[in-house]
């Protein structure tokens, strides 16, 4: 081989603590290395041009770049060598920035280590083989999990782009959390008024198939060709027949059913349509409370339903959809704030969550938009808002900021003043975080125009004063003294966490999630929509806290990723797949059993059972390679011999 080595200075990032020229000089003595240089910025245009020139001039057939992490620029340099006519896999990187120059200050040790890392890379490269991608067909259809505003936006954008969409929603209606909100910041326009039309569009768009009351059961396949099994939960109502007239819920005798949509601020009937603008506007029976199910007799709804849609015998059913990509938009839930015993741990009826407060504010809520205390129905005079309940609190293992609470607290305080002009509102806050367009102006209005009293400090305790009100004890850290407020109502800005089933879904989608259940994007900065599984994209809060505009933007971004994927008729696989040496294979099937992707099947060659890799399914983990005792399955680009070459270069 004829190998060229480029030891990047990265300005002073590397050269500050590594003698790059010396590393290049040492590299010249490595086997097959015929050229070495130490450019200032290898990744910059002149640096890349120099690599191309060297490939031509020195007839290189392999290149090693010692610079930053391959996770940063491997793709860049692969394209560089490809432009110069080399196969992109005849390239290796030595990470001498993140793994050397940035973590140690001793130049001698760093220089030595860099040279060794280059040596490993050369050793590996000498065992590299050119690899070529294979092409395969694509199913041009998108599946979206979650019908909140992010999922709705992604669905509409995909469908508008001509790509059929399957939208799967766990609840009986789409709309997500946004549908529960009264008004939205910073414009204070009605949430239902701006979301409603989009929901209707979803229902009416011919390119969108909506499965509500449905969940993902199984996912198999790979980018371009996923097969998704969807569980349609039994609603006990034939939605083909249901007209959404609501006659059933009017007559339903089981009126003490907890109202999930209203965040348990009221009760509803066992058969109901969650809210008037629900899409699909279809009734659902809550079997836990329906007398037909709990007592075995009732049947009132079946009698009154003019369409004859009630079907108590309904079972869960399944449907399988073939799609080319999947967008996860499963949103969030509020954390269980009742672990805060100092706020009563849920024992005090007038200490409520901000989302419950939204339902109290909403004209379609249980109180018709009147702010009253859940305990006695009286209008509160003093309301205390406590921010960061379950956010930025390391003591309960939740260090992250939930992102939008500062803004909605300001909004709720403003709306409170609108509803109850005589009322006084206090907001306990840690910091006000309002970095959006018109956001800070909005929160200032709460203080300046609406007279909301902002107190910088945490609340140490909330307790009933025995006379029907609540004592809110806290600290004003600006004044440096304790504060005690008698409040009629306390609203907690409860922090968010990922949807309960997010980890289970992540495992089905083979994507990663963090310890709070939020899905992991492929790169925090540069790939915020992609995941580590090709063809699975993220939208909305399932990826991390964000407000409505950001969720909508990410929904559109995910749709753009889907549309870009489908802009091609054929896809190329990553050729870093496992290969079977049929001669070595004894057909024991251990690899088949281990493969996380079902990418290995059994085949027969001359009447002997052999393993066979489906290259388009193989994701290149190499588990099979370390499982096969005789080394018959080798992962291209990470073969036993390639890794052994690296080990041998280090240990001899």
């Amino acid at each position, binding site marked *: 081989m004829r190998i060229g080595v480029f030891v990047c200075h990265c300005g002073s990032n590397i050269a500050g603590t590594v003698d790059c020229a010396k590393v290049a000089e040492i590299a010249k003595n490595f086997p097959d290395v015929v050229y070495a240089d130490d450019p200032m910025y290898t990744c910059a245009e002149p640096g890349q041009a120099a690599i191309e020139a060297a490939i031509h001039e020195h007839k290189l057939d392999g290149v090693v770049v010692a610079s930053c992490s391959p996770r940063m620029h491997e793709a860049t340099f692969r394209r560089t060598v490809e432009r110069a006519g080399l196969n992109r896999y005849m390239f290796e990187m030595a990470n001498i920035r993140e793994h050397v120059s940035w973590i140690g200050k001793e130049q001698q040790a760093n220089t030595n280590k860099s040279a060794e890392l280059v040596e490993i890379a050369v050793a590996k490269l000498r065992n590299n083989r050119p690899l070529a991608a294979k092409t395969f067909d694509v199913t041009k259809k998108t599946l979206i999990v979650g019908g909140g505003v992010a999922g709705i936006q992604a669905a509409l954008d995909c469908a508008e782009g001509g790509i059929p969409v399957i939208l799967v929603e766990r609840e009986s209606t789409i709309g997500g959390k946004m549908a529960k909100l009264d008004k939205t910041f910073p414009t204070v326009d009605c949430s239902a008024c701006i979301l409603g039309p989009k929901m209707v569009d979803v229902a009416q768009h011919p390119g969108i198939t909506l499965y509500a009351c449905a969940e993902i059961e199984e996912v198999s396949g790979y980018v371009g060709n996923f097969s998704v099994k969807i569980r349609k939960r039994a609603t006990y109502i034939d939605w083909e027949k249901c007209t959404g007239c609501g006659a059933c819920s009017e007559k339903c005798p089981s009126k003490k059913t907890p109202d999930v949509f209203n965040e348990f601020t009221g009760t509803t009937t066992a058969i109901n349509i969650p809210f008037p603008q629900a899409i699909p506007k279809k009734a659902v029976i809550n079997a836990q409370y329906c007398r037909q199910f709990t007592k075995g007799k009732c049947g009132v709804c079946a009698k009154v339903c003019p369409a004859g849609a009630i079907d108590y015998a309904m079972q869960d059913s399944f449907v399988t959809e073939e799609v080319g990509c999947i967008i996860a938009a499963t949103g969030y839930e509020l954390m269980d704030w009742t672990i805060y015993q100092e706020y009563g741990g849920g024992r005090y009826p007038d200490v409520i969550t901000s989302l419950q407060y939204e339902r109290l504010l909403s004209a379609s809520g249980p109180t018709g938009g009147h702010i009253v205390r859940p305990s006695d129905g009286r209008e509160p005079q003093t309301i205390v808002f406590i921010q960061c309940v379950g956010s930025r609190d390391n003591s309960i293992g939740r260090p992250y900021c939930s992102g939008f609470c500062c803004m909605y607290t300001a909004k709720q305080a403003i709306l409170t003043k609108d509803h109850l002009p005589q009322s006084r509102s206090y907001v306990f806050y840690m910091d006000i975080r309002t970095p959006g367009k018109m956001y800070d102006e909005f929160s200032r209005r709460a203080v300046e125009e609406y007279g909301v009293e902002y107190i910088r400090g945490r609340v140490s305790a909330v307790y009933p004063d025995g006379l029907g009100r609540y004592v809110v004890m806290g600290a004003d850290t600006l004044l440096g003294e304790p504060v005690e407020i008698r409040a009629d109502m306390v609203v907690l800005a409860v922090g968010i966490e990922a949807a309960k089933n997010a980890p289970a879904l992540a495992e089905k989608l083979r994507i990663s999630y963090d310890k709070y259940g939020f899905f992991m994007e492929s790169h925090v900065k540069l790939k915020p929509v992609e995941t580590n599984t090709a063809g699975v994209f993220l939208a909305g809060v399932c990826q991390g806290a964000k407000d409505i505009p950001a969720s909508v933007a990410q929904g559109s971004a995910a749709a753009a990723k889907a549309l870009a994927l489908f802009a091609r008729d054929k896809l190329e696989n990553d050729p870093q797949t496992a290969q079977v040496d049929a001669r070595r294979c004894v057909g024991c099937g*251990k690899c088949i059993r281990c493969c996380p992707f079902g990418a290995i099947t059994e085949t027969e060659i001359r*009447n002997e059972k052999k393993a066979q890799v489906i290259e388009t399914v193989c994701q290149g983990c*190499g588990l099979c390679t370390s499982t096969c005792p005789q080394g018959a399955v080798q992962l291209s680009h990470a073969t036993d011999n390639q890794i052994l070459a690296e*080990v041998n*270069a280090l240990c001899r």
Partner: protein
Amino acid sequence: MPVMKDKELRIVGFLCNWCSYGGADTAGVARAEQPTDLRIIRVPCSGRVDPLFIVKALLSGADGVLVSGCHPRDCHYSSGNFYARRRLEVLKHFLPALGIDNARFEYTWVSASEGQRWQQVVTAFTRRIHTLGAAPGFEDAPLLMKTADMAPAPLRPLGTGKNAPLESLKQAIKEKLPDLACVIGWKQGYDDAHTTPLFAKKPEDVDELVWGPLNAANLAVYLPLFKGKKVGIVVKGCDSRSVVELLQENLVAREDVTIFALPCEGTLDMGRVNEKLGRYNVVGGIAHGATNITITTDGQEHDFSMAEYAQNKCRGCTEPEAVLSDVRMGDSPLVQGEAPVPQELALLDAMNLDERRSFWRTQMERCLRCYACRNACPMCVCRDYCISDSRDPHWMTQEAGVTQKLFFQTIHALHLAGRCTGCGECQRACPVGIPILGLRQHIARTVGELFDNYRAGIDPAAVPPLLGYEVEERNIREREWK
């Protein structure tokens, strides 16, 4: 490549591309200062890290090896690290059997965002390796010769199988023979005191079948060679476990094999028998008592009581009867008591790490790499494509050094993890009597301890532990490290 003298030690890291390599990057981005000893090899997934890479590095001069992958449940490939966890945990238990301090090997989980944790991991591990110092080698370990004790009293009365219904069995075999390509059994070998495998194809061949304590060889080793053909096999209890294991691994089809079984009363340790017989020209005869056999050589009688001359494995045997059979005859023996720690294993257990390195160096020096151990092993199914003598992959050289030889034993033992039934054929086949069975017993014990007392070769439908995983492992507590 030499390390920086007196400053660095050789520490090799295998990091998965997605989490831990990213975590190391994150640490770099955060300028989290770390010791400079570690050299990172990037692999796609911790599941790609064949434990043999680690042994290879440690035997080749690495002072420490660190594997890091995504946290359980976070694997980029969904389950690679679950498999890795089992395999690496088994390795961690196994290394001391070789005489390698398993503190020199660690595996852990670091996510791409945990730069700080990565810094802690590297710092702590490097400190640990520096505390341990440079790894001692095998080639220059002082010589140490030790031999295993004889096993304690057997769990069942041992005998010579004199009263076993051999004639009825022959009749049964003859009845089935027309449908079978052959029936594998034992016949008299080069003299009365030795047996050799019998491949009966004709009824008169069946008459050559013998039964008794000389039938030490495990004939299951031949079954995969008849793949696709219908064959019969006569088994002892231990042999039947090998058959079960082959069935479990799809190397033999259940419908293709007819298993004939008699209850085993124990087999002789031919190494010791031959030693006692010494040099002789001819065997004058062999007489079977109930619990002993008498061999006459050159006119001199030698008495071998089963109690004294049975193989160690027979004394600890809990399955004298086949665990799976089609034709079964004879009375069931009564097994009482728990299997003791096998003697070869007890011998290893009684040594410290230094002694074990010395022991293996002393033992391995006389290995000729004839691979009788491998080829006699019914579970060595790679056959002609064993990685020990392949160039691609190129795990081993032809060099005759102790580390190469010991590395082969490691390959064999690790490949047998969860598969070895303890039949002992490897050790019995060794012409120079190297007590290599201890390594297999060690790993089988580890597998049992880690995976709910799993024993290989009991249930053809069982999932072998290293081909499966639990999301929460009951007996692996890898996360307690830091």
